[in-house]
Structure formats: C-alpha cells, structure tokens
C-alpha cells in the first residue's frame, strides 16, 4: 500500500498542478487574447517562443533552468537582487518551471477559441455599450468556454505528469519538490516495483476522477456556441 512519503508526494503534486494551472490561466488568457487579435508583426515570433518548451526535452529545459535560476544565472541574479533565495530546490521554483513548461498547453487552446469567436459578437456588444472588460467577461469567456476547459485540463494534467524538469531542478526534497512522478521513479530505480505500481495506480485513478468530473461538469452546462 501507500506509505506516508507516497501520500505526501501525491498531495504535493496536486498542489503544484493547481497553483500552476491558476497562474497559467492568469498569464495565458491575456497573452492568448493578444495573440488571437493582434496584427503586430511580432506575432509569429511570440507564437514560436510560447511553443518552444514543446521542442526541448524536459530534462534539457530543466538543466538550463538550473543554470538560469542559479546564483550566476539571469533569473538567479534577479531573485538575489530582490532579496529572495535562488529558486532551484524550492516549491516556488518548481511552480515557475511548471508554468514555463506547460504554458503552450494553456495558450494554444485559448488562442484558437478566441480566434474562432470572430468580430461579430464583439461588435454587437460594443453597440450595446459594453466596455472592453464587460465584453470580455460577458461575451468572450462564455463563448470560449470549451477552450478554457481544454486549457485547464491540458495545463493541469501536463503538470501532474511532469518529470524531467523537476528531476533537474527539484533535488528530491520531501514536501517541497518530491512530486509523485519523482517518487514513482525513485521506487522504480530502487527496484521497489510493488510500491511503484501502487503509487502509479493511485495517480491514474485520481487523475481519471478529476478529468471525469471536469468533463461531466462541462457537459451539463448549456453549450453557448450551439445557440449562435
């Protein structure tokens, strides 16, 4: 069965994934909105940068984050300058890494959803004197709901399944950076296959339940796009 260390790792994983998903939505929504609407010539370049983490193998990305976040790296110098510790081996460090790593999975579905809304609903809202924020929350968000759902699901699950980045910058510290994928890996490496099977089984079951809930909830709500 599961040992305490395994339960701690499970709990930590869902904490990292939840916080990362919220942060990715907060940062990714304006970015995706801008990318979907802009005609700026930098658009392709920004799009490419957002997609870059998909190209790099996670351990490679993790290694460069270790260098960048270290005392002589750019991010490291910044964190020292504002007076906080360097980020590797800390909880905020792996959250930041997860956000960078999973960002494309949040930005891309949102961008597609925003782009498919088109001009008409926005113009209609404007003629009814809705301000930009009002338009965004009363028109865009409901219309782009499937996109948000996909973004949340992909962002969350991708962070739960993350391994290589955390391996490189985590340092395997209980309750801070030892997430469930690390713990399963540790079991496998130590040839503790039984423990690995149990933990992997629980992770699958829990993730399945979360996904099932999300998909069920999204189905019972009226689908606004069909009303168009």
């Amino acid at each position: 069965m599961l040992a305490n260390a395994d339960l701690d790792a499970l709990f930590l994983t869902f904490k990292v994934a939840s916080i990362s998903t919220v942060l990715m939505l907060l940062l990714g929504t304006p970015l995706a909105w801008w990318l979907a609407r802009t005609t700026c010539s930098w658009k392709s370049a920004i799009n490419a940068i957002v997609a870059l983490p998909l190209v790099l193998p996670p351990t490679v990305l993790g290694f460069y984050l270790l260098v960048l976040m270290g005392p002589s790296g750019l991010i490291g110098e910044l964190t020292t300058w504002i007076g906080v510790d360097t980020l590797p081996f800390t909880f905020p460090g792996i959250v930041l890494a997860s956000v960078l790593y999973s960002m494309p999975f949040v930005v891309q579905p949102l961008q597609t959803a925003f782009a498919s809304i088109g001009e008409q609903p926005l113009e209609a809202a404007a003629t009814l004197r809705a301000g930009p924020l009002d338009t965004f929350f009363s028109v865009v968000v409901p219309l782009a709901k499937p996109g948000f759902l996909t973004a949340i699901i992909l962002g969350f699950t991708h962070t739960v399944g993350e391994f290589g980045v955390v391996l490189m910058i985590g340092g395997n510290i209980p309750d801070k950076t030892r997430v469930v994928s690390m713990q399963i890996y540790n079991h496998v490496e130590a040839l503790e296959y039984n423990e690995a099977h149990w933990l992997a089984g629980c992770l699958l079951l829990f993730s399945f339940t979360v996904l099932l809930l999300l998909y069920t909830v999204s189905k019972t709500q009226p689908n606004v796009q069909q009303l168009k």
Partner: protein
Amino acid sequence: MQTSRISRLAITLALLLFGQASWSATVLVAVAANFSKPMTEIAGEFEKATGHSAKLSFGSSGKFVSQLKSGGPFEVFLSADEKGPEKLEQAGLTVPTTRFVYALGKLVLWSTRLGYVDDQGKILETGNFKHLALANPKLAPYGIAAVDVLKKMKLFEKLQPLFVQGENIAQTYHFISTANAELGFVALSQVIEKGKITNGSGWIIPDNLYTPIRQTAVLMKKGAKNLGAAALIDYLKSKPALAIIKTYGYDLAK
C-alpha cells in the same frame, strides 16, 4: 557456369562480412555515471590495442539493472556498486565467474568556490550553507557513502534538512557546478584531472569514514559470444587500463 560464379561471389561476400565481424567486434557497454571519464579514455585505448570498438552508455547503475533485467542489450556492465551485478548474477543473466571489482570509488566533498572546503571537512560543522548536495542514498552508492560520512561525523541529523539529492552522481555534480548547492559529495573522478582537483576546493574523504564503494563489472550472457566483450573484460584488468583508472583517483582492488 553462371551458378558457380554467383556462389563464388556469395562466399566472398560472406567471408568479407562475417570474417570482418570476428576480427573487430562492437561491444555495447553500460557504464555507471561516475566512471564515464575514465571509461571514455579506456575505450579509446582498447580500440587502438585490440581493434574492437566499445559503444558506451552512461547512466545510473540502478536504471541499468532494471533495463538489463528486462532484456537490455548491453553486453558488459560496469556498475557503481557490487549489489547490481550480484542481482543480475542471481537472475542468471551473467556469464558465471566473470564478476570482478574494477575500481574502488573515492568520495570527495567539493565546492566550486576556491578555499571554501578545507582539508578536514570542518566546513560541514561550521559552514553557513543552505544546500548540501548528495546522490540519493536509496539509488546511488556514492549517496550511501555520503550518508556514512555524515553519520560518522555525527552531523547527519543536523544537516539532513539541507539535503538536495541528485538521482545519480552526474546530476549531483550539476547541482554543485552551477553553484545552486554551495557544496556536496561527488565522485573524485568527476573533479580530478591528472591527479589534482582542478576547479574549486575539495576534501578527499578518508577511507575509514565510509564503506568501500566496490565498483563491479560483469560480462552479460548477451555478450557471451562476442569476442570483443570478453576482450574488454580482460582489457579492464590490463596495466594501461589500471593506470588510467588510477589517474582518476580511484583505488584498485587488492
């Protein structure tokens, strides 16, 4: 007439292909991360001396044991410990009586800062550091040795909250070399060049503070018929190979 010419051609081709193979074979070797530098050098000399070539894969010994148990293709396995090859032997995957200790691993407390680590390890008691890097003792023999040292010095409880663990000794080295951890325990072979610690400062830890790291090699059954594999096992015991092993700070088994 025509058929005999074809068969002659076939025989020539076969001789060329298989004859070649028996003279210079390729050996797949799984090498523990700490031994990557010396083994690269040894493989070069081995090729020059015998004409066989060694293809090296580096990683953690634990991962190699898992892979070899599930039919991994490696023909020679250079583990960082004694346990892995023993397990493989018990599973009947190795060629009997080929197991031997090729080197005794040396542990070093190392930092990239000059003059930071003193030659008695006092820094462990007095230092004001935030992170102490070591290899995961559950997975890596150098991690077990590091824990031995801290326990002997009665510092384990005090320093445990500062541990950052690498999955293998190479990753532990990254933590320290990027200065994310101020200091940590790595293999001497990783920081030594021509018999000296060239970068930063280090304390080569006395043998009596940790259980010997008996790095063991074994010939896998997969390589039983490969002449190159047997030749590599022999070459690892030869004078030129032992000389290389020594320059990387390892002791030799008695």
